[in-house]
């Protein structure tokens, strides 16, 4: 299990302005956190900062706190069913280790916090340059608490800022093959960007290009989530995929393609999952990522990604293409594509109009997988709108990569809002509202973590059916192991009959 902490930029600023003192002395405070549980990563999502009141702590070079302060924190944690985070500062820069005094203080707190909240104590230290380090104190036996350092601390707002623990997320080795990239923004930024765990949900025309662009930018840890298989009709739009891939899972075909392109010395980690984001495996894998690309064209996964962006503080880069033919069906009438980032401090996908809840309900009801039902839908329905083409997908993937780079690099501190390219006029529109509507429910999910996403996991009959029909040996073995051979054969026959009836 990997450990991590995430917080909003607002809370980071509040903490930093309290903890980093002008007189160079150390300071402390407490915060509350909620859990975000991925498949392989546990994240403490800082939900509330509890600053000391007068007399709550004594600053004397080092710093100590009063029993009253701790009691106040305890009762709030109990009342809100949150974990407790103990934070202090060091008067030096970079990732911080722990002194013997630091260890003793947290060792003393860990059992009290665990007994009260049933959650591990999270300790955090901030350096005087704003770099965070963190650890979980996990009870592994009676009176035995083990300290696990966090691999990362993520701060999300207008920008994404990461603190990495080098021992767990080692610096990358870049040779001449990345010299041009590094010459654009320097090796420090390259180390920041390249150590991100990036997820791509939807490996269609846009997702397959984004995957390759990320590889060329130096990212070597990718999670690919898509239950779909390659069909003949996809071949004019999927980057690097040819006829031999037809009938195979998109995620595996794109993973193989990326592996064949690997350009650096470092190993490429690609977690390819032929699942829907709604399924537990897909959702939990997404929660292991530092950043997600939404390359989907359906409302249900967009809704899920929107929930993840706010409740787990994982920025989601989303985009969409809208095209249609003219009335005489002899030319393109219009095309436009737009990209934006969803997450705290930014406009959510629902307020941006990227999905409406009733379409999510319709997709969840399963009817959007029924070819007969789709045939009866009006031409204006989003499912029947004009399809994108490879060149437009290139344009959108480019806009999404620009959002990605802007979020991470923030050149001159500038904030990049939503952008829309109008193909007819050749202009880029950026005149969009940056904030959500006042009553936005997604903003109110900020940092609630598992409390939100545990209620989102569902079975996805279309994804299950695709996996049953898939001929890829990895999926076949996975299916047999999970359900047993006899169950697998029965379900596969059923899926084949259904497929025959549908078409």
């Amino acid at each position, binding site marked *: 299990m990997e450990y991590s902490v995430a917080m909003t930029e607002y809370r980071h600023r509040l903490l930093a302005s309290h903890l980093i003192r002008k007189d160079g002395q150390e300071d402390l405070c407490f915060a509350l956190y909620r859990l975000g549980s991925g498949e392989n990563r546990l994240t403490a999502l800082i939900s509330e900062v509890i600053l000391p009141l007068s007399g709550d702590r004594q600053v004397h070079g080092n710093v100590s706190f009063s029993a009253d302060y701790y009691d106040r924190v305890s009762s709030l944690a109990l009342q809100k069913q949150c974990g407790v985070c103990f934070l202090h500062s060091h008067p030096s820069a970079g990732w911080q280790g722990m002194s013997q005094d630091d260890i003793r203080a947290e060792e003393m707190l860990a059992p009290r916090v665990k007994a009260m909240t049933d959650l591990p104590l999270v300790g955090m230290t901030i350096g005087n340059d704003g770099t965070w380090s963190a650890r979980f104190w996990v009870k592994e036996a009676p009176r035995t608490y083990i300290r696990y350092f966090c691999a990362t601390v993520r701060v999300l707002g207008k920008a994404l800022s990461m603190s990495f623990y080098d021992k767990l997320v080692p610096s990358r080795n870049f040779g001449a093959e990345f010299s041009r990239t590094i010459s654009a923004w320097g090796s420090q930024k390259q180390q920041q960007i390249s150590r991100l765990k990036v997820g791509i949900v939807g490996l269609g025309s846009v997702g397959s290009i984004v995957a390759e662009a990320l590889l060329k930018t130096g990212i070597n840890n990718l999670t690919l989530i898509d239950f779909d298989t390659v069909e003949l009709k996809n071949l004019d739009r999927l980057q690097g995929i040819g006829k031999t891939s037809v009938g195979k899972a998109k995620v595996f075909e794109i993973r193989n393609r990326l592996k064949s392109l690997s350009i650096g010395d470092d190993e490429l980690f690609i977690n390819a999952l032929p699942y829907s984001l709604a399924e537990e495996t897909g959702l939990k894998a997404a929660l292991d990522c530092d950043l997600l690309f939404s390359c989907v064209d359906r409302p249900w996964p967009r809704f899920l990604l929107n929930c993840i962006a706010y409740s787990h503080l994982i920025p989601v880069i989303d985009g969409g293409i809208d095209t249609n033919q003219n009335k005489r069906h002899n030319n393109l009438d219009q095309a436009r594509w737009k990209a934006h980032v969803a997450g705290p401090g930014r406009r959510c996908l629902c307020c941006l109009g990227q999905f409406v*809840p009733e379409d*999510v309900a319709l997709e969840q009801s399963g009817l959007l997988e029924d070819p007969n039902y789709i045939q*009866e839908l009006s031409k204006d329905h989003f499912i029947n709108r004009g399809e994108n083409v490879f060149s437009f997908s290139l344009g959108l993937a480019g806009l999404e990569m620009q959002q990605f780079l802007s979020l991470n690099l923030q050149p001159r501190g500038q904030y990049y809002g939503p952008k829309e390219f109008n193909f007819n006029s050749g202009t880029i529109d950026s005149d969009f509202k940056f904030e959500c509507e006042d009553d936005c*429910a997604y903003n109110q999910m900020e940092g609630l973590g598992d409390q*939100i996403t545990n*209620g989102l996991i569902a*079975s996805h*009959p279309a994804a299950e059916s695709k996996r049953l029909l898939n001929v890829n040996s990895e999926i076949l073995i996975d299916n047999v192991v999970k359900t047993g051979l006899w169950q697998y054969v029965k379900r596969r026959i059923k899926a084949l009959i259904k497929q025959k009836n549908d078409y």
Partner: protein
Amino acid sequence: MGADDIKQQLEAQGYQVQIYPGNGAYAGGFVSFKFCIPHGQFMGQEVEIALNAPQFPLVPPSGPYISPHLLPVRPFGQQHPLDGIHARNVPTPDFQYWSRPYNGWNESEKTIKDYLCFLRTLFDF
């Protein structure tokens, strides 16, 4: 979120609710209540309405499940009231599923009160 919210809000409106467990695609189960049809050709008839909306109020029900069967099953087409009526056998075989997305849910208060208003319009034929 989900069935608990629906149940709580229906009870606050004075309805007696029943829970039907659900699994697979119907995880989260169904919340049902007796509903007297206020107008139209079935006016005055009491039916049982079951709702499945695991992410309510973020996402509204995609349509009501209605017992007893009121109209012939006709899954295809978009014309209300006769089209989009499915035999799904959930929560029990006595229910029909009427696929009726609530257009404009985001602009509503997103409460069960809003959904009941919408439900009433479905029988106005």
